[in-house]
């Protein structure tokens, strides 16, 4: 009973951190979130995605061909509770909390003591790397949950040969490859690794789950072969054959792990590593613990994860990305658990010291996340379009025409946006009507051309500060939405030939 209470408290803590003001923060749905929201609502209302494709297995969306799992996952939620920011973020945040629970039970299955499992669960519930992506609907979080749940069920099956658990494992692993792209590479490797560890004799109990898993993989391969467009995203991101090894090795960086991984702040700014700075000594203890450990399976599993975790990310270009190596997280969890095993055997003063450090690191994460994150990334999260959409929805009939810019930014005019999706969601446009005529009231989505558009009568121009002339009198601005830094995000200008003739 006491144990149950401890587990429940950790789940509640994880839930509080991941669900607290979930709909309000981050204050704007990201480009992916808004796309998830509209496509899921469109599937619910019409069985077609935003491009009119019937129940797709790959969503063209913004040209990035999203995997279907997380979109279909939202359909029943929207059906039951309606479309909202909270409901859009709900499934991933829920999976994230469940992951904390799975981590605790999985560690126990891997023969860690209850105390160590609980302590790791507590640490994991406060891990910024996981929290940040959990609150912003990143599919990698769902995929991580499936992988760990599958592993947990696999371990149960290994012990008691229960057919349901191995079937469950193959089902969730199969689902995970339809959730996030890196799983397409990682999960087959994991399955192969586990197969080599146990080399089961071919019995019906083993054949069934293999068939289930193969069915998932075959469907995915068929999709890639017959629908070449869906691989476009992979081609765009591919780093090049000659650079794969270099990119893979880039992820083995102490700085990236503990100091600066670019999770919340841009490259040139102080931020967070994958783990907390205070975790470094525990991590070293964990490495020593790994070498000393007599649990051969755990040793092999940790080494497998260490080597295989960043393989998929190694194929993609750009700086090392914390989201592409979410699948690597279990390696760090296992090592930290081994470190905690040693720490908990030491004098209490060390534990208290660590907890103080952890509290500091967590408060630092919360400060970066709640106060600073939006100041750096407001434009990349399309901050302001929600407010613009709500205003226009209420006032569109007062104008003959409304022009909304699809390009803006905090420092320069460089962010290409998808305003129509925000207007579709916040104006409650019926997806069926949108699929038929592709119009939203009297709104056009393009950058305003001042020279021409200012001549239009009774038109509302919504643009960034760069869309209007420099000598533009500020008193012409009817309404303004600012970024959290105070820079103007969107300016609302009602055209009137009398006004515009002044600066022609």
């Amino acid at each position, binding site marked *: 009973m006491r144990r149950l209470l401890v587990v429940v408290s950790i789940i509640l803590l994880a839930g509080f951190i991941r669900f607290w003001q979930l709909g309000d923060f981050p204050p704007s749905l990201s480009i992916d979130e808004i796309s998830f929201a509209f496509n899921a609502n469109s599937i619910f209302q019409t069985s077609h995605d935003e491009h009119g494709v019937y129940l797709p297995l790959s969503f063209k969306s913004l040209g990035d061909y999203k995997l279907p799992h997380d979109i279909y996952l939202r359909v029943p939620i929207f059906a039951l509770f309606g479309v909202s920011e909270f409901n859009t973020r709900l499934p991933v945040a829920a999976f994230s909390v469940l992951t904390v629970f799975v981590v605790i039970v999985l560690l126990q299955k891997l023969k860690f003591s209850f105390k160590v499992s609980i302590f790791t669960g507590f640490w994991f519930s406060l891990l910024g790397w996981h929290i940040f992506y959990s609150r912003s609907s990143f599919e990698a979080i769902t995929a991580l949950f499936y992988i760990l749940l599958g592993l947990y069920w696999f371990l149960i099956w290994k012990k008691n040969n229960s057919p349901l658990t191995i079937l469950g494992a193959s089902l969730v692993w199969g689902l995970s490859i339809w959730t996030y792209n890196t799983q397409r590479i990682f999960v087959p490797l994991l399955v192969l690794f586990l197969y080599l560890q146990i080399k089961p004799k071919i019995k019906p109990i083993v054949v069934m789950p293999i068939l289930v898993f193969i069915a998932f993989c075959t469907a995915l391969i068929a999709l890639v072969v017959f629908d070449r467009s869906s691989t476009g995203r992979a081609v765009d991101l591919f780093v090049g054959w000659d650079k794969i090894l270099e990119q893979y090795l880039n992820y083995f960086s102490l700085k990236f792990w503990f100091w600066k991984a670019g999770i919340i702040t841009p490259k040139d700014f102080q931020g967070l590593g994958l783990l907390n700075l205070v975790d470094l000594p525990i991590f070293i203890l964990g490495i020593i613990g790994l070498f000393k450990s007599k649990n051969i399976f755990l040793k092999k599993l940790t080494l497998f994860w260490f080597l295989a975790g960043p393989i998929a990310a190694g194929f993609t270009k750009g700086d090392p990305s914390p989201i592409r190596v979410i699948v690597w997280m279990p390696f760090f969890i296992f090592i930290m658990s081994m470190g905690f095993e040693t720490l908990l055997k030491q004098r209490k003063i060390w534990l208290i010291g660590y907890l103080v450090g952890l509290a500091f690191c967590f408060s630092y994460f919360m400060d970066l996340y709640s106060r*600073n994150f939006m100041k750096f990334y407001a434009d990349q999260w399309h901050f302001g379009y929600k407010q613009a959409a709500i205003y226009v929805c209420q006032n569109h009939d007062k104008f003959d025409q409304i022009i909304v810019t699809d390009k803006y930014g905090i420092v320069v005019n460089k962010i290409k946006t998808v305003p129509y999706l925000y207007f579709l969601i916040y104006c409650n446009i019926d997806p069926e009507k949108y699929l038929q005529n592709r119009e939203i009231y009297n709104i056009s989505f393009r950058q305003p051309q001042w020279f021409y558009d200012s001549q239009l009568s009774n038109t509302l121009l919504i643009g960034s500060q760069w869309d209007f002339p420099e000598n533009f009198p500020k008193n012409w601005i009817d309404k303004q939405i600012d970024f959290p830094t105070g820079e103007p995000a969107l300016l609302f200008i009602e055209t009137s030939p009398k006004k515009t003739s002044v600066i022609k």
Partner: protein
Amino acid sequence: MSLFFFDSVAVDRIVQLRRLAGVTSESPLYTRLFYNKAGLLIEKAFDLLDFLPLVFLFIILIYLFFRLIKQHR
């Protein structure tokens, strides 16, 4: 010689960048803690020791390689 041997211009630049982004005033505590010479010292230490995971990786690979050879004998 000062313990903090870093270029103070770098510190100023970081603080200036943060100020431009409107961050400094919001986080005085953390600014003091990390955006100073001590913060840069930690950063430098990470730069110097950045290769350690790679060393670990190569130790593991060499270990696995010899294990494989041993198994096949």
